[in-house]
């Protein structure tokens, strides 16, 4: 039976994350994180805020979906050398493999967004200030579902390796 692809959380990024038929294939410029923007004051929120603007000087209630910048720069990074507790899903029977976390500064939005790095990207591959881009990712799979997410990865450099 084919597994269904489902975003691990609804409405935080485009499509169902598989990139099929929507121009969102890996590395495609179509894949974006989705935030919301207040119609009154222009404040941008990620994760999305849909009911009330959180700017204390604004009474706005009309928030519309807005894609975030596809590229940013590394604000900081780390990794997880020990298995995190639930609700992170991992198979205790499989030896733990560290994942890398990247906090990315988006210039236009003037905000920092955290995410896992694409598989294979280790802390040794990263530096503060390095350009990265968001790409579709897979958080994990279970019997019926492939759970999709976003990954940060260093911006490829003309096929000659990483920037």
């Amino acid at each position, binding site marked *: 039976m084919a597994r269904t692809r489902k975003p691990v959380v609804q409405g935080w990024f485009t499509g169902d994350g598989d990139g099929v038929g929507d121009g969102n294939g890996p590395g495609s410029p179509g894949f974006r994180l989705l935030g919301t923007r207040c119609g009154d004051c222009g*404040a941008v929120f990620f994760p999305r805020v849909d009911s009330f603007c959180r700017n204390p000087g604004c009474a706005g209630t009309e928030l519309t979906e807005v894609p975030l910048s596809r590229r940013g720069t590394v604000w900081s990074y*780390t990794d997880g*050398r*020990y298995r995190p507790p639930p*609700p992170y899903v991992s198979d205790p029977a499989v030896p733990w493999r560290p994942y890398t976390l990247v906090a990315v500064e988006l210039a236009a939005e003037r*905000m920092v967004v955290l995410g896992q790095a694409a598989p294979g990207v280790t802390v040794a591959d990263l530096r503060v200030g390095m350009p990265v881009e968001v790409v579709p990712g897979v958080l994990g799979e279970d019997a019926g579902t492939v759970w999709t997410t976003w990954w940060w990865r260093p911006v490829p450099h003309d096929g000659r390796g990483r920037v």
Partner: protein
Amino acid sequence: MTGDVAVLGVGLHAWGKWGRGFVEYGTVAARAALADAGLEWGDVQSVVGADTVRGGYPGYVAGATFARALGWQGARVTSVYAACASGAQAIATARAQILAGLADVVLVVGADAAPKGFFAPAGGDRPDDPDWLRFRLLGATNPAYFGLYARRRMALYGDTAEDFARVKVKNAAAGAANPYARYRKPVTAAEVAASPVVADPLRLLDICATSDGAAALVLCGQEYARRRGVADPVRIRAVSTVTPRYPRTDLDLPDIATDSAAAVPEPPVAFRPSVARAAYEEAGLGPDDLSLAEVYDLSTALELQWYEDLGLCAEGEGAALLREGTTALGGRLPVNPSGGLASFGEAVPAQAIAQVCELTWQLRGQAGARQVPGARTGISVNQGLFGHGSAVVAVR
């Protein structure tokens, strides 16, 4: 000053992994604080508990739980939840009751029996909880955030892993002299460097453990203290419990992103320094007046951050202040003379209260081998999940 309240009694339960319940720990600490104050439990008119659950940090029970364990006696009761800042907000509540004339004498208690390993959110599918989301989506544990801050300091200020290790060495040396600390052995830089990496660049000995523990205070009005024959008590002069200001641009656990500063400029003072600034303003003093500070060293690198946020030095100069010995016992301004969380570990609702116990012993001159000579003014500062900040200023 009219806004001061007196610290009549302090008490701790030794921290560690004892395998018993938090009610027992809290009761031991409460009885110790009452004995230190020379009061009976029946004298207490109000009890304020810092919340815990049975093994975690979202809060459900506290004040009444301790009132029951000590014996129902009809006292006013309050429970306070502010994550890691719960203890300080419990102190703020007690102080407000005293200053409002609602009670002359208030018992403040915080206790916890912490789970082993990483803290984790409560169970169930709860995608409306930012704490649940950061674990489910990213596996971002508390040490992961500490690792991000540490790496950022290395990139911005040139801090090194050796600087971070120096914080542990300093705090372990102080904690070795504290009978209530969980870890009472000196630690060397080589031992820190040999411990396994938890969240790059931080190692196991850079990150505070989870612990069982409890702390309690007996607070009262100054007139009440005089009537008890205590002419010169340690006094609490300020308790800051401020929230961040929008847009909050310092990435903090459990958030996955900061606020955007695109539409509204960021506030002139970031969150952590604003916590300290509010306490200084309320107390009418500044960093130059301090004899000592107790700060939340959840990681070694975070202690250096607090030096800067407290105004002990300029931004980026925390490691230099440490290297020159200013913040060690014997230095001009010892930080974490108790041994800090590095020596105690985290017992969430208790630790902000334990910080004030240490300030009290220090200002009374009762801190033994870890005594800061001539201590007159101390600050404790901490920060709780979900935007809770707290600092307490104590004077003698």
